Every structure is written in structure tokens, then in C-alpha cells.
């Protein structure tokens, strides 16, 4: 997710020097993907031997989890390959990143796989999140006194784009929540609904931080305020914390809790 986001950010904002960082993220994602899949095998046999049991892994492979694994592996491989190709490979990376994101759409508990537009919505949602996460590291890196000008510039351009895609992100989230949860009663009364409330609350905090960055710290940075860089950097750290909580809640939502029916 993070590596895809960094690639998207690189494409959108022409950020340089992110290749190594992105490769590291992508490699971590590859390893985590493979370990995650073989942990599925262990869950089936109840012991660690299941992690390499060909029968169990073959069984997993035959389900949507296997399909998602294939998408994610190919996607991440393309992403890394694209990065090796230099600047012209960015598009290859972006396609790979898109594929890796798409893999998230094919698992989880979205009940009716026939609703195609719901998948589309989910993909938009994921891409917007990826861009958001992707901007954090480059921005935080730039946010020190010597490169304050570049940070302000990047932050400013990101902020202008965010005005368009953040509402889209929220709208997509709202529509999906409505389709999945269905009623206020099941929002308040089920574990799924409650986890969703937690997630939305943290998202609100994140949006608050982002607004603070956009409306206060980035403009101050543009005016050459030395403290603004520190503030921006700290604010981004808090954003990271919020992002992690959101990702964890989402993991619970999509795998542990069953949908209210």
C-alpha cells in the first residue's frame, strides 16, 4: 500500500529520490504477502507445518485468497520492475501498484460480488488512501529547515489536489458503508458497525490533522517560518499513528467481523 502510494505520488508530483524507499516498502509488502498466505496454511492445520504444506496451500490457492495473492504478487513485481527501469518505468510501477491495490478488492466480506460499481468505488477509495499514505514520508523528509521550500511546495500541491480527492474518498467510504451496513440499528448494534464508528472517528482526527497542515503549517512554511517545518513534521508523525489505527481497524473489519445481514 505504502509503496504503491509512493509511486502514485511520484507520478503525480514528480517527486525525486523515492526509488530506494519504494523498493524497500514493496519488498516488505512482498514478504508480508507471502508470510500472510502461508500463515493461512498454518491456520488450516493448527501447526506451523501448515505454512509449507502443499495440500493446504493449494487449497487456499483455489479460493479468492489465492486469486488475491496472485494479483498482489504480480502487482508488486511489476512495481519493483518499473522502479528498476528508471523514470520511464514509473508507469509500469503504477500499473503494478494498481494491480496490488485491486487485490484488496477481491478478498474480504463484500457480500455480493456482482455489484461491479462497488468494486470500482473500493478501488477509488484504496487509490486515494494510497496517495495519502504515499505523500507522508516524502513530505516529512522534506520538512526540515534546509528543504523547507520544497516541502512547502509539495505540501501546497498536495493540498490543492486533496480538495478534490478527499471528498471523493469520504463519499466512496460513505456509500460503501451504507451498502454494507444498511441501517442505523446495525451500525450501533453490531460489532461491525461499532468498529466502523471507531474507524470513522480516527479518520476525522486524521482529516483534522491534514486540514491543520494545509491551512496553517504549509502556508507558514511558504512564508519562511522556521518553526512551521517542525510543526509539520510532528503533525505528519501523528498522521502516521492515525493511519496505522485506521489500517488495523480496517483489517478487523474486513476479516474478523461478519457483516450485519
Amino acid at each position: 500500500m505504502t509503496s504503491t502510494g509512493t509511486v502514485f505520488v511520484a507520478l503525480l508530483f514528480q517527486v525525486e529520490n523515492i526509488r530506494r524507499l519504494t523498493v524497500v516498502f514493496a519488498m516488505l509488502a512482498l514478504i508480508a504477502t507471502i508470510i500472510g498466505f502461508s500463515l493461512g496454511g498454518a491456520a488450516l492445520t493448527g501447526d506451523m507445518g501448515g505454512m509449507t504444506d502443499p495440500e493446504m496451500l493449494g487449497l487456499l490457492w483455489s479460493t479468492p485468497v489465492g486469486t488475491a495473492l496472485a494479483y498482489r504478487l504480480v502487482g508488486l513485481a511489476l512495481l519493483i520492475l518499473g522502479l528498476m527501469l528508471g523514470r520511464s518505468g514509473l508507469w509500469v510501477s503504477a500499473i503494478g501498484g494498481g494491480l496490488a491495490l485491486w487485490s484488496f478488492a477481491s478478498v474480504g466480506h463484500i457480500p455480493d460480488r456482482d455489484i461491479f460499481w462497488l468494486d470500482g468505488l473500493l478501488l477509488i477509495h484504496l487509490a486515494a488512501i494510497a496517495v495519502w499514505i504515499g505523500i507522508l514520508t516524502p513530505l516529512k523528509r522534506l520538512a526540515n529547515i534546509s528543504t523547507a521550500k520544497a516541502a512547502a511546495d509539495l505540501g501546497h500541491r498536495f493540498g490543492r489536489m486533496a480538495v478534490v480527492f478527499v471528498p471523493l474518498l469520504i463519499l466512496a467510504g460513505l456509500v460503501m458503508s451504507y451498502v454494507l451496513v444498511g441501517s442505523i440499528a446495525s451500525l450501533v448494534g453490531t460489532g461491525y458497525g461499532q468498529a466502523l464508528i471507531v474507524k470513522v472517528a480516527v479518520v476525522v482526527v486524521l482529516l483534522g490533522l491534514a486540514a491543520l497542515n494545509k491551512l496553517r503549517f504549509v502556508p507558514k512554511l511558504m512564508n519562511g517560518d522556521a518553526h512551521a517545518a517542525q510543526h509539520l513534521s510532528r503533525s505528519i508523525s501523528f498522521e502516521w499513528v492515525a493511519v496505522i489505527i485506521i489500517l488495523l481497524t480496517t483489517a478487523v473489519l474486513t476479516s474478523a467481523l461478519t457483516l450485519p445481514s
Partner: protein
Amino acid sequence: MTRPILTSLMVLWATSAFAHSPLNATVPANEAIVAEVPSEIVLGFKGNIRLTRVAMTHAVHEADLDLDGFSGFISEYTIPMQSMGAGTYQIEWRGLGDDGHPMSGTFSFTVQE
């Protein structure tokens, strides 16, 4: 910064997968007290599942029940079992839902003297 995310996601992935409760009913029922050891047990699921392991524990004995006769994703399993005499039998099952999520659960029944 990424390492804690990845580790927690992985831990979640591994544990949370068990949160489904897809078992409809079993024969003998959970915590039932029966007169003699059944020759087979029945596990009925709400959806289709592929059982991957069924372990039976009786006093100090532990044995895996034979699942070789089954294939594909089905919702009802009738599994032969061997008698180990009176006492409490604990059955632990593991399987894969057709959405790809691993599931597991336990139930037990007691055979009277």
C-alpha cells in the same frame, strides 16, 4: 514505522481469521450426554467449507479423524469415529470457507458409563 504496522497486520490476519462462527449444529450436540459412543459424528455448517483437520481428544488420548473420503467444499460432514469408551470427547475442527478464510471451532460431548 512500517515494521509495527506489518507485524500487527500479520498477527491480526492470523488470529482474526477464526472469528467466523459458521457451525449450524452437530450430532451429538455440543455438551450433550449420550448413552453410547456414536460410530460417526455430524458437523453441519451454514455455508460451504472444506474441513482440513478434525482432532478428537478423549482423556489423555488424541487422534485425528479421517477426512480422506471428502473433497471439495460442502456444508455437511458425517465423519466416522472410533470408540474410546466412556468419558468426554472434545472435537476440534479446522477448515477453509469458500471465501478463503480459515475457520475453526470446538465442541464436546460426554458418553455415560
